């Protein structure tokens, strides 16, 4: 290897391999508890990928909400329903054949499509090394309040982009808050213990 290793790419490969490998393990496992555990590892590797792409706030949110919340919920559900006969349920092998066929065709379309656009190939090494580390927490917070401070200064070749400045996300923030409240009430109502009439 004549050139030196570019470390961010090495870590990208590591996290990406972990995420994909554990996702495939979720697919292939039959024991439901092991599936949940592999999913935890796959989502944690995805959080690592988020950190590598510069989205540290979203990465921390993924760890806290997805891994630490949604998956705990899923595991509770698994525990509540894990009787002997449901822990391992096998699929008919005909299903597997169809599944792999369709999955393979989908991948064969998506991956060449991903590599076909030249602008998606990645920055040149020189450009990448001269970039400045930016923090995202403050602009994200301000964006959620409606003030898009990330658009006060524009990136170098923005001149040809002629669209208007993007609006803030305050309305979406409010809507998703109300949505979460409704979901909380609804899920608690749906999952309540019912009194059986004897």
């Amino acid at each position, binding site marked *: 290897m004549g050139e030196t290793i570019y470390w961010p790419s090495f870590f990208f490969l590591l996290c990406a391999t972990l995420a994909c490998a554990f996702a495939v393990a979720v697919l292939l496992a039959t024991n439901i508890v092991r599936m949940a555990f592999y999913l935890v590892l796959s989502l944690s590797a995805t959080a690592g990928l988020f950190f590598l792409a*510069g989205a540290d706030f979203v990465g921390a949110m993924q760890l806290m909400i997805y891994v*630490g919340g949604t998956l705990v919920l899923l*595991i509770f559900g698994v*525990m509540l329903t*894990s009787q002997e006969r449901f822990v391992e349920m096998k699929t008919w092998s005909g299903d597997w054949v169809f599944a792999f066929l369709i999955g393979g065709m989908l991948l064969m379309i998506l991956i060449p499509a991903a590599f076909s656009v030249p602008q998606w190939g990645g920055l040149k090494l020189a450009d990448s090394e*001269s970039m*400045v*580390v930016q923090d995202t927490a403050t602009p994200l917070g301000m964006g959620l309040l409606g003030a898009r*401070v990330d658009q*006060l200064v524009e990136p170098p070749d923005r001149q040809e982009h002629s669209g208007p400045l993007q609006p803030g996300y305050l309305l979406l923030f409010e809507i998703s808050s109300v949505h979460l409240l409704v979901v909380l009430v609804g899920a608690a109502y749906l999952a309540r213990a019912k009194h059986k009439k004897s």
Partner: protein
Amino acid sequence: MAIFLSNYMWSWLAYTIAALVHVVLILNLVAISALVFIWLERKISGRIQDRLGPTRVGGKFGWLQTLADGLKLLTKEDLRPEGADGMLFRLAPYVSFAASMASYIAIPFAGGAYLLGAAPWAAQHINVGVFFVLAVLGLEVFGTILAGYSSASKWSLFGAMREAAQVVSYEVPLGMCVIPAVLIAGSMDLSLLGDRQAGLFTNWLIFHDPFTFIAFWVYFTCATASVNRAPFDLAEAESELVAGFHTEYSGLRWSFFFMAEYGSMLSVSLLASILFLGAWHGPLPIADWLGLTAEHGRIAMNAGKLLGLVNLLLKAVVGVSVMIWVRWTLPRLRIDQVITTCLKYCTPLAAVMLLGATVWQYQFPGRNFFGLTNVPQAVFSLSEGPPQAAKSGNPVTKGAPVAKVEKSKMGEGA
């Protein structure tokens, strides 16, 4: 450190060594602190119960007792129950331990002098440090659930489920109690939070307004519940009567669970010290008086930082000692009492404190110590990075010390 070393060797070797040094330091901190805390717990519990505690191993005070216990645990038989799920049973202690250790990545042990471009003494200077630590501490519950499930015993499963419910419930008021401190400092960056409290103890965030004062005590209660300690430890102790999530574990695997617990205790105490108790700035600014600051050169600055590190660790040890003291003083709560405390007392209190701190900060923006003193001017300039030639087309960078550009996951220059 990595940049410094890479002047002398290949860069990949420099980064590897820098990362290894960080890992070794943190592992040593966790392991030695676990050793010390187990001994401290036995001594304190002994004194509270009017007896002496360990006195034989290692001289009069028995401070090598934990080492002897560790050796005993190493030589125990490695059991595995009959119907247990092998892979998950073996993996569970390490999951707990990994989650507990990962929170130390973002915790700074001494401040950074941004004007000189020196980074804080953290393994990784994460901009959203507080959020990251809280998120990772919430992952420890997976080790518990896996241990309870894979032990193939219904008592283990019940204990694990109760403990998981408790930890997950207490994450909500824990997060809400942290927000007043973040609000006042204006950043989630732990080193900025620490340096916001520079100077006398009147600058400490716990004394910033009465709402933050109460928020600290609620935080401490929720942190104690979150690490399953003190009056909230039904998963490991009620369990002494029946069984617990770590019943089927013996020897080294069990000790990993306990290292994870003591590691988490130290981690939440460190977080409490950084957020509320002034971090590495003592009650009196001794480092400033002795002239150990950034203006007097690198060696003086590093000596000042070392003093700050010792200060921070002392505060965290005091926090852990209070947790130990409370454990042996108060009776244990039942699971319904635990959840009642969370939902009916801690959460509304934390919400009201958040509201109060917001209103206070809006009314008296630049004041410390219950509104009696002013925030020193040096603190306000913390949010700006070191003076750099502004490149055209730079997005607004607020609060980011412009460090090296490579976004590698290894440590930054120390």
